[in-house]
């Protein structure tokens, strides 16, 4: 087991070091400094990079743990402001339960696992054991340290032992589920949501005075101990880990082969089995490019609509949830009202994240334009603009699904939190949200048509496209700090986004016939 761990670590490190050298050599000055493949075979250079790599990876691990405990701490201050220590342990308990079922190590697929087990032919069971122990021991130690820093009470060890035992039980449950149903527990959605929902309810227990205390966790530990031992024995009794890993990692193989792009394209098509058949009525009377576009969007309905509907539902849930909370908590009511009247700029980044423009244009390229652009007739300016027009309309419609929920929800929230001195807000906020949604829809399509960023192998090639995408995010992000009255901001934003959209559309109409081609 120790040998497997050492070997796996050695391969990982070499892989990381080579990746680093490879990236370094992409920079012109280093390319000239270290010509050829000398750096890859230089043991001295590699040992220096190895030390650096070790420091960096340890720092990264520590950082992740700090973030983990910081989140727990912040949640505890909200949940149990009077007794933060108790809240921390309560939330740690919930996180551990969720991690126990869904953060499994044995069945996760990864390139690393594929290479180790299938390609390097490592003993799958020893490998599994090594990975499992590495994970649970690292967690036991780091969580003990983390909780000790926060609480400094021996009671924390009862919780970290619970985490330790829980992980073993969780791993066993996952392997059992996989051998019985051929899918990992993580993909058992009814179970997943049940655990999440129950965890959410347990999280609320401190509100009614119930909290996970040391007697409770001691009892749970005592119950968990024999179950964990039996689970571990069960895990060790299974001999066909190689087969399990092989089957689970077949997709990883595909993703790492030269087929990867073909595969990802295939995966996008595979998702929408139910979209393969199109309702004939929807195509009736359509001809030419109108028919072509309808077929494209009908075939991609699932991709296009699924996340839009998902965001719409989440937005609705959040709005209703916040609505209920503000009605029972006057402080929250006041704060939210203040926020809505002064920080509406926050919704720029929210709408940025909700917008599906980037994914939709990717689907367009992978599943349609990539092959269609090789035909002359498809590159005809009239055709390009015609297809563009239809796409703008459809993408905007898709993005309007979640946008309209927010556009209706925000004025209602504003009203129930105490209203606004400027009644115009009730109109300007919804218009602002809708124009923002249309703006993002147009924006992604415009930069896609102007910079068409992919080459014939579907690799991202355009620096300009990447820069503009990054800039879009940066602007949206920086606006979260921007304080201006909602009335003024929403009106300025409406004018700016409408102006941008008009100018962008004019540019596309003039330039796209020249720019929209395979690189």
């Amino acid at each position: 087991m120790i040998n497997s761990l050492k070997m796996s670590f050695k391969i990982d490190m070499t892989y990381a070091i080579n990746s680093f050298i490879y990236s370094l050599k992409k920079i012109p000055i280093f390319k000239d400094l270290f010509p050829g493949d000398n750096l890859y075979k230089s043991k001295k250079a590699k040992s220096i990079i190895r030390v650096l790599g070790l420091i960096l990876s340890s720092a990264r691990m520590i950082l992740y743990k700090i973030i983990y405990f910081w989140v727990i701490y912040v949640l505890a201050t909200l949940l149990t402001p009077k007794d933060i220590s108790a809240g921390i342990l309560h939330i740690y308990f919930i996180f551990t339960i969720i991690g126990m079922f869904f953060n499994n190590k044995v069945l996760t697929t990864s390139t690393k696992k594929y290479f180790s087990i299938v390609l390097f032919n490592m003993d799958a069971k020893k490998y599994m054991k090594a990975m499992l122990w590495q994970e649970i021991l690292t967690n036991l130690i780091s969580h003990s340290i983390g909780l000790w820093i926060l609480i400094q009470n021996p009671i924390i060890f009862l919780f970290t032992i619970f985490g330790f035992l829980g992980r073993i039980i969780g791993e066993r449950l996952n392997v059992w589920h996989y051998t019985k149903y051929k899918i990992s527990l993580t993909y058992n959605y009814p179970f997943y949501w049940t655990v999440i929902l129950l965890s959410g309810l347990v999280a609320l227990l401190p509100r009614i005075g119930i909290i996970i205390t040391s007697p409770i966790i001691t009892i749970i530990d005592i119950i968990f101990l024999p179950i964990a031992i039996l689970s571990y024995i069960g895990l060790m009794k299974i001999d066909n880990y190689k087969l399990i890993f092989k089957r689970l990692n077949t997709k990883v193989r595909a993703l790492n082969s030269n087929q990867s792009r073909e595969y990802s394209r295939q995966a996008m098509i595979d998702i929408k089995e139910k979209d393969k058949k199109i309702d004939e009525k929807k195509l009736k009377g359509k001809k030419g490019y109108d028919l072509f576009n309808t077929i494209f969007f009908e075939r991609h309905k699932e991709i296009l609509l699924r996340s839009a509907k998902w965001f719409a539902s989440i937005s609705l849930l959040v709005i209703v949830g916040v609505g209920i909370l503000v009605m029972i908590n006057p402080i929250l009511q006041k704060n939210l009202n203040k926020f809505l009247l002064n920080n509406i700029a926050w919704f720029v980044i929210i709408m940025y994240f909700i917008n599906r423009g980037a994914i939709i244009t990717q689907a367009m390229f992978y599943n349609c334009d990539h092959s269609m652009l090789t035909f002359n007739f498809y590159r005809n300016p009239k055709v390009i603009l015609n297809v563009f027009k239809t796409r703008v309309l459809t993408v905007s419609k898709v993005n309007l699904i979640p946008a309209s929920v927010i556009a209706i929800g925000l004025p209602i929230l504003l009203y129930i939190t105490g209203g606004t001195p400027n009644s115009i807000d009730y109109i300007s906020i919804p218009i602002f949200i809708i124009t923002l949604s249309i703006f993002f829809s147009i924006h992604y399509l415009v930069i896609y048509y102007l910079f068409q960023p992919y080459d014939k192998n579907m690799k991202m090639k355009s620096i300009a496209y990447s820069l503009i995408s990054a800039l879009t995010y940066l602007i949206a992000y920086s606006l979260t700090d921007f304080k201006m009255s909602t009335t003024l901001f929403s009106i300025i934003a409406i004018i700016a986004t409408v102006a941008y959209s008009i100018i962008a559309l004019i540019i596309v109409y003039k330039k796209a016939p020249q720019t929209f081609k395979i690189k």
Partner: protein
Amino acid sequence: MKLVIKNLTKNYGNKEVLKEIDFTFEEGKIYGLIGRNGAGKTTFFNCLNEDVEVDSGRFILSDEYGENELKTEDIGYVISTPTVPEFLTAKEFLSFFLEINKDKIKDKKTIEEYFDLVKINKEDQDKLLKEYSHGMKNKMQMLINIIANPKVLLLDEPLTSLDVVVQEEMKQLLKSIKKDHILIFSTHILELALDLCDEIVILNNKQIELVEKNNLNTKKYKDKIIKMLKDEEHDK
């Protein structure tokens, strides 16, 4: 040594891809598995390699000592699109492989000797596999499969996209190792199969069938194979 396939059936949903296949492959021969596009050649290999679950069927390895179920370690699988850890150099890849499998490898050679076997020059050995061409990656994939020395080696169209020189090198390599192995080589290029393989089997209409050569010359044999592929119903 023989690989006996008994009653192999594989369906994808309602689609029957392989149906009640019974066939025996023998040691010391290269079998050319021919089939039209979509006939199920890769599915057949995936079943043998246990990458997918079969609906029914057994795979048995039999020799003078008896019969055993085919095990994962008995099989090597060279896929048409080679998968290698791209951020390792060829030398590192090989060294790690040799170190991990040191107890399993018989007649261990030096790294240099292994590279000679697949004709990879010294100056290419310290290159990242990411920078290797398709053919070179394929050579590496073939090499580790040869070192692992499985009893059955499945080759899924491994030579199709190689240049003529590499193709010839690989053919010679396969011929040199066939003695103690069962090699099953899938391709849809008939000429390649006729040139390299000792036996031709066709996968058609969900079944595997040996094409007897009898006393036919190459031209007549080829015509016979094409006729068999055309005549029967095939699965598209």
